[in-house]
């Protein structure tokens, strides 16, 4: 494990990746809000992050593509579409905040590293 590739940093990077991918799926669901027969798609964020954690122990570069599944239990409209605008809006807002948090954590981790490199700073 090198200095700038700690397990925390690679976990945060994976989390950022997953959040961005999920946001892409949310955007896709929103884009298809009027497409007949379209079904809401999503990834299991926690499960995927867990999987990345376990995979990361064997091979830091591992992770692979997240498994995209159709979301069960949503009410289908007569045209076969089951996109819920409320669900997608909430997810969009939540993902945005989550991304912000992960980016801030990553930033603070890097600044901690910077501090270590400069020898505690201030001298």
């Amino acid at each position, binding site marked *: 494990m090198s200095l700038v590739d700690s397990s925390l940093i690679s976990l945060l990077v994976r989390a*950022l*990746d997953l959040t*961005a*991918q999920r*946001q*892409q799926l*949310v*955007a*896709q669901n*929103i*884009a*298809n*809000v*009027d*497409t*007949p027969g*379209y079904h809401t*798609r999503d990834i299991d964020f926690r499960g995927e992050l867990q999987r990345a954690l376990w995979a990361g122990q064997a091979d830091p570069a591992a992770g*692979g*593509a*997240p*498994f*995209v599944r159709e979301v069960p239990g949503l009410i289908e409209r007569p045209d076969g579409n089951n996109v819920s*605008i409320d669900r*997608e*809006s909430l997810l*969009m*807002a939540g*993902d*945005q905040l989550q*991304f*912000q948090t992960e*980016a801030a954590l*990553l*930033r603070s981790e*890097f600044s901690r590293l910077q501090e270590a490199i400069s020898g505690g700073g201030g001298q």
Partner: protein
Amino acid sequence: MSLFGLFQISGSALAAERLRAEVATSNLANAETTRTPEGGPYHRRMVTFTSQPGSQFHLLLANSLAAEGGAGGVRVAGVVEDPTPPQRRYEPGHPDADADGYVSYPAINPLQEMVDLMGAERAYELNASAVQAAKQMIQQSLQILK
């Protein structure tokens, strides 16, 4: 990463919803049109949407190639004409009246078009806020560099 792919997805939906609004407006504008270049009255038009292939395969491909593009947005499959026959009104003095004095008017229900227009407007708004979210996320990831 695929953050910029968000713009493509939401952008495709913005374009599609705009076309839907345009078609609804055109239907409203032509509610009384009895003459068209193709002959006969105007026919109500409808936009059909289809989702772009952006499923598991795309994500796999994007992951392995780190490629953008091919995002699973929405595509306009086509603009189709409503097959409903025109409404016939008895107006013998009208220049487009047939031999029996009936004029064929397009079968357009303004209420239906207004509802469609409102739906397109709301969907456009929703996708615009998705673009806003993508912008913020990209800005935040740029902050990491600082």
